[in-house]
């Protein structure tokens, strides 16, 4: 682990309960600026729950209780004075299943900026173009911005969701299995995109694909039944895991 990394997100003894069931157990780890951090682990191990607690999406689920803290640049996002709305503007999210709004492509991207009070048409046009270019979708969609987002293919829809997320100019991008519903070609496009976006954003990605974690991430965290088993640079995790469980999972002996 290089020492010059800047810590962007830091969790401190984060525990999360769904009612009585504890889903996350005392997780303490750091995610570094302009790096891709991948969460791997078998289904139900809490990695999606964990990524959703980084922009407080779990608040939407009834009966969720959280202890510990999540600090983004030294601000605990669960502190009462924190504005959830402003938090989510800074911490964008891309979901497992692409979920474009049933609106036009243009309106999908312009939605976030409009919410933030941008009404100038020229400025919106510019944001839409930049976001679509950022999500490598501009060439495919520039001639049909008024078409329904639902007319795009699955891979295009997912890239549209990425464009929508970066349109509000966040500095952290959370991706919850962004490629799980995509074919290999779309997946490789999204992966290329992640590597490009790394220049400007701190990216946290949940993935079921070990190969994907190895390809795109700088750091990898392995979760198992709500616990963080091992966290370190991706190269170390994949070549020289310190824990037996990590090694077993990576080599495919369980999971």
């Amino acid at each position, binding site marked *: 682990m290089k020492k010059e990394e800047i810590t962007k997100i830091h969790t401190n003894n984060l525990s999360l309960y769904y009612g009585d069931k504890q889903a996350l157990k005392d997780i303490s780890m750091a995610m570094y600026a302009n790096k891709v951090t991948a969460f791997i682990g078998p289904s139900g191990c809490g990695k999606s729950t964990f990524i959703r607690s980084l922009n407080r*999406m779990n608040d*939407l689920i009834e009966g969720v209780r959280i202890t510990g803290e999540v600090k983004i640049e030294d601000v605990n996002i669960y502190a009462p004075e924190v504005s959830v*709305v402003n938090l*989510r503007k800074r911490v*964008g999210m891309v979901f497992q299943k692409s979920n474009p709004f*049933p*609106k*036009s492509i243009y*309106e999908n991207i312009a939605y976030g900026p409009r919410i933030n009070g941008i009404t100038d048409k020229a400025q919106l046009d510019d944001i839409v173009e930049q976001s679509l270019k950022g999500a490598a979708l501009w060439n495919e969609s520039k001639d049909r911005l008024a078409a329904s987002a639902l007319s795009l293919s699955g891979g295009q829809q997912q890239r549209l969701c990425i464009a929508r997320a970066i349109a*509000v100019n966040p500095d952290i991008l959370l991706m919850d299995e962004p490629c799980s519903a995509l074919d290999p070609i779309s997946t490789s496009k999204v992966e290329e995109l992640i590597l490009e976006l790394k220049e400007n954003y701190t990216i946290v990605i949940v993935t079921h694909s070990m190969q994907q974690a190895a390809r795109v991430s700088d750091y990898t965290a392995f979760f198992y039944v709500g616990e963080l088993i091992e966290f370190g640079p991706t190269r170390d995790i994949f070549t020289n895991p310190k824990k037996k469980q990590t090694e077993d999972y990576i080599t495919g002996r369980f999971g």
Partner: protein
Amino acid sequence: MQSEQPEPSNQPRPASDAEDQPVAARLVAAQHPPLTQKKRRIGERLIELGIYSVSATSIIFIFLIFLFVFREASPIFFGGADGGKKDTAVATAPATGPTTPPIISNTTADDTAELESEQYNPEAEALPTPQPTASNPPPATPQDDAERARKIVGEGYPILEHESPVNVSYLAYDNWQPNSEHPRYGIYPIIVGTLKTTIVAMLFAVPLAILAAMYTAFFAPKWIRETLKPAIELLAGIPSVVLGFFCLMTVASVVQTLFGLDFRLNSIVGGIGLGLAVIPIVYTICDDALRAVPGSLREASLAVGASEWQTAYRVMLPAATPGIFAAILLGIGRAFGETMIALMATGNAGTFSWSFTEPVRTFAATIGAEMGEVVFGSPHYQVLFFLGVLLFIFSFIINFITEFYVKERLIKKFRGA
């Protein structure tokens, strides 16, 4: 092999196919029925037939109802068979020309007609009564009546409306006085009255219902939602006569004192009453429509930093547009057709006015109040059925609007082409 052949032939069943085949072939045939032979269980067939006949019956019933209503009102559209006979009979009798001009001239002579009717005249009072009793021989009566009417009111005076055949010009009046000396079946006040109460009802009910649905769908904690939704839906179970009574006694007084109105019962009170009946319908369907919007859209919106309200208003509401419009149109249909509340709370005044603070009369209330006492086959009867036809036509129009405008244009607008 050969000895077995007579056996099947002795059986009474007509198994002609089986007889020609050898036994082995028949055995095979018994194990595997031929592919071309359709085997259907009688029970299933009966059930299918039952389902088919029930659906056919319901469609036929709807069609027959419409046919019946339309037939009873048909003289107004076509002059009708009876109407046509009356037309010629009356046209020859006065020898002043065709019947329609006198009727039109009667509207211009409105003042004199009303003056005449104000004078109490026992003979004229008796005039409408022979018509119902003598409604069986139609050709004779109008002529007689016309003769007598001319005797009473003088040669130059135009024929009374109820003696002339029913036609559309009957309906072109500003007031609804079906039982008057000079009956007027003016449908303008009724159309306008229905529109006014419906507009008030929708203005009152739709915002409340949609906002309530948005609250329970997105904002309310679980326990509030679980109490509020059944409570509002319970409103649909209140008999409309109770709502009508409530409006008649309470809402009318409140509205009158609040706005300082001259009339206790008016389109506002009636509209509020209809609105109370409409709210649960619109609310329930809106709530279902809003909750049917995928939660992933809500998450997506919240994830770009939208507040709950922005999400509800800018994402969930547009996504639920088709359902919400269906709810509104269903509400309009209910407000349009609701009889008892309209009968009790609108004042039932058949006079033309654009003012919302004056008593009004609606289609449904008119039919409900008068159909029971109307003389079978009389012009009044036909006009009431004509109102029924108009109700049909309005609901068809509403359905067409849903189909073609709402489904295509609005969805395109909200969801992108």
